[in-house]
């Protein structure tokens, strides 16, 4: 009987532990290029090779006051490219009264031509998490079911501070750059389930231990050139 219980437990644990790695964004290429607030001419990207997640707007919240700064630099891409609108949120003591305005500001980005997914980039402090959680829950309710909702995540959210585990997001992209003086080591600690499918890196901070088998979002601190983009894609493919 004891052996049977042990076998049962082991089987249950194995069943619980087994999570097939399903790609939550099957419509998107495995490499996504972040196009930040710089003039970007990316019409040389092969749509089969990479997609573009572009900063569409920055929403600033101070208390109940919401300001929206749209992307002010032109972005040119090849027709047919998988496009993801990124909305960056910056806040200082955000109040619940600002939530609807923030949500509208974020939603408007999905109206842009050809946008097939939404990504929110918000480094919410612990005191801002309820606000952020509410925004995400509301957005998920009103976004079309076919529109993936991605968020960027501090590595700590994916390592141990797992407040994002219950959020209705398609993926959380751990950003493994701008984290200190030394390259990030610890991809094996990114154990939060939402953080399993992708990773965010920067071209000016090579990873010491690149995590494999994930969609990679690539940030570049300047406007992309064809050569830089080619080199970045080749490097990522080498270890992806």
């Amino acid at each position: 009987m004891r052996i049977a219980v042990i076998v049962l437990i082991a089987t249950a644990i194995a069943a619980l532990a087994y999570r097939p790695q399903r790609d939550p964004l099957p419509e998107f290429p495995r490499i996504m290029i972040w196009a930040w607030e710089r003039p970007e001419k990316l019409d040389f990207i092969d749509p089969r090779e990479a997609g573009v997640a572009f900063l569409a707007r920055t929403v600033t919240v101070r208390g109940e006051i919401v300001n929206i700064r749209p992307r002010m630099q032109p972005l040119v891409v090849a027709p047919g490219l998988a496009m993801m609108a990124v909305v960056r949120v910056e806040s200082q003591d955000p109040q619940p009264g600002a939530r609807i305005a923030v949500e509208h500001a974020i939603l408007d980005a999905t109206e842009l031509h050809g946008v097939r997914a939404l990504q929110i980039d918000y480094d919410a402090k612990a005191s801002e998490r309820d606000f952020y959680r509410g925004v995400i829950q509301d957005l998920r309710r009103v976004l079309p079911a076919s529109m993936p909702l991605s968020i960027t995540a501090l590595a700590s959210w994916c390592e141990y501070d797992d407040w994002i585990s219950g959020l209705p997001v398609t993926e959380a992209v751990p950003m493994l750059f701008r984290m200190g003086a030394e390259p990030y080591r610890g991809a094996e600690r990114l154990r939060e389930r939402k953080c399993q499918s992708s990773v965010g890196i920067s071209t000016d901070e090579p990873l010491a231990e690149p995590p494999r088998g994930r969609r990679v979002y690539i940030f570049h601190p300047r406007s992309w050139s064809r050569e830089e983009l080619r080199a970045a894609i080749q490097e990522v493919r080498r270890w992806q």
Partner: protein
Amino acid sequence: MAIRLRNAALLLFLFAGLLSNPPDLSSCGPFLPTAAFSFWTVPEDAQGRFARGQLGIVQPGFPRFYLIIAYRYLAGIGLNAEEQSALFAREVYQTPEAQQPEAIDQWKKARARVAGSAAQPDISLFKSISGDGYYINYLNCGDNAFHNAAKTLEGRIGHFGLQSPVVKQWVAAQDRVFANCSGGPSIPAPLEGTADPLARTDREYQIAAAHFYAGDHDVAEQMFRAIAEDKGSPWSATAPYLAVRCVVRKATLSVKGQGFDRDQLSAAEAQLQKILNDPGRSAVHPAARRLLDYIRARLNPGERMHSLAQALLQKNAQATIQQSSLDYRFLYDQLENGNFGGFKALQGDDELTSWIQAFQAHDAGSAKKAAGMWRAKGSLPWLVAAFSMTHGEDSAGSELIAAAQKVGHDSPAYATVAFHAIRLMEESNRRAEARAALDKLLASDGALMPGSALNLFRAERMKAAADWEEFLNYSVRVPAGTAIAFTQYTGDARPEMEEPDAPQRKPRPGFDVDAAKILNEQTPVELWLNAAQRQTLPQPMRREVATAGWVRSILLGDEKTARSLAPTVQNLAPELKPSLEAYLDAGDARARTFAAVFVMLRNPGMRPYVQVGFGRETPVNKIDDFRDNWWCSFAPDKDGSLPGYYRNASIIGEPLRELYQDGAPKAQFLAKDEQERGKREWSQLATVAAAPDYLAAQTIDWAKSNPSDPRAAEALHLAVRATRYGCSEQKTPYSKQAFDLLHKQYPDSEWARKTKYWY
């Protein structure tokens, strides 16, 4: 069976618990305020002393906004009070969203005077255009649109009366005009021919403006040209200028994000020139000139950059300096990024641009160029540039040091030149000369210097220290400000992003990284005792040295030094006095070690190294919320870097790196045997486990052999706590062992009750 199922469930639960065991602190955030001893990315007191020409040490890390100012002073042009005000006026820093409330507010206030108008519609200033393969947003309605509307409304109220239906109709039409700022098209209807002539001409203008904001630029251009021909229209003088704006919009927006249409911009340039040649249109000449500058920056960036650089070096340029600085930096950014043809588009010899390029590049080629330019021109800007890039082994060194003698104390270059001249002396082993020069400089000018420069001179003097006393003396620095040690990835540096953005801390003396690295990594602990007991360091720094030195000597097993340091720690940190009594009173070495461990367990702020700047700001006996508790292992990882908070405080960054290009300050003032002992002790410290493991192992060992010690239960509880909040690089069994021992040996104690989990 029920019991078995319960046990199985418990097993499952525990297994899940194991899976969720929290690992150590990530290096990601928090972004804590740090002490800025010497500024690198922005001048200290930028709008005050720096703007008045007291430049301190000019750094290549300064944004170009400040380098232009520095150049003007170095070239003898300077800035008058009006130029200073103009450069630092808020408009320079305002982003479009910051402008929104002020401009729209003015319009809303004027509009609110007209009773009976419909509710104010929301206005958004930006328009988005996106299509297959392009995304463009632009500021569609600028400030002037709202100022002009408010002014016109006031005029019409004065002409027709507040209650006039004409005014109400005008407001309704203007609401439609502004609806096109972000949306549209929303075009007001024309007025009947029988309408008041002024109202009719106003409406024609509103219709043209609505088309302009809606993006119907061809229609708008035709309408503005027709208005220009209508001499009866109050808008005929400005209409030609607005027609040109339509052409410019077409030129920049019709190409779907692919730059601009050169032919259309050229046509706009010719039309603007015609307006500027017409004295009858003088009202729009300032706006026309600005638009012409905008066009020329794109059509001929090299020439425009050249003329801006010349404009920036004019005296009494208060009327233009702000715009020139903005445009120049915009063009510089574009050329630097390879846009508009890159730097090869530059035309003619542009002194300012050459200087900025060389000064910021800071490489061997630029050093050679700067030295050549200084020899050829003998000017201060090139002397400063040459100095900042030359090193002790370079042939220009002696020549430059000699030139420095001729730079007077009242020169804006004085601090920069003196700093680098002394640096070169040190780098070429003229250490005694460097010391003498520094002592003279600090005595005569130290009190008047900005803190940022003073700290760098003190760092230089510490590097040249002849003995331990001098080292300690010049290790004392007062932060020049507070900064956030985090660079957001929002793009290019702008002055407004570089201002230290943190609540300013009360300045108190502390160690910068150069001094801390020498103490922590090269100084034997007996000298820590000496530093703690002599009066050279101010009290807070002595306390830091004494407390860290005591922990260090415990970890190194140097009982003699630890016992000597304990009374000093008691004096300098009175809150630790009772705990240290137990240590001093302990009967033998083993008991003393446990007593020391118990003190550390109760005081998470204790660590075997001095901290940099503000250090850990949580009280020594409290757990730090960001896990800056005790110490991490000092064993370097495979690429030689150190884990935990100590790593971030041990890296020599700019501007100290100007003094230590290899990033490694050396305790040359110590005797050879002292240097060796210091090095040996640092290596030995690397063999000590991270605090949670070290403290828990010692505690478990003591509690097992001394179960009746009344401190044992509390110590085991604190050891488990340390494994939760301390730094551990590897999974070790100590947390569970301490937990088990506590619950087995002291099951009824309050400490067992408080310890519900192990980690």
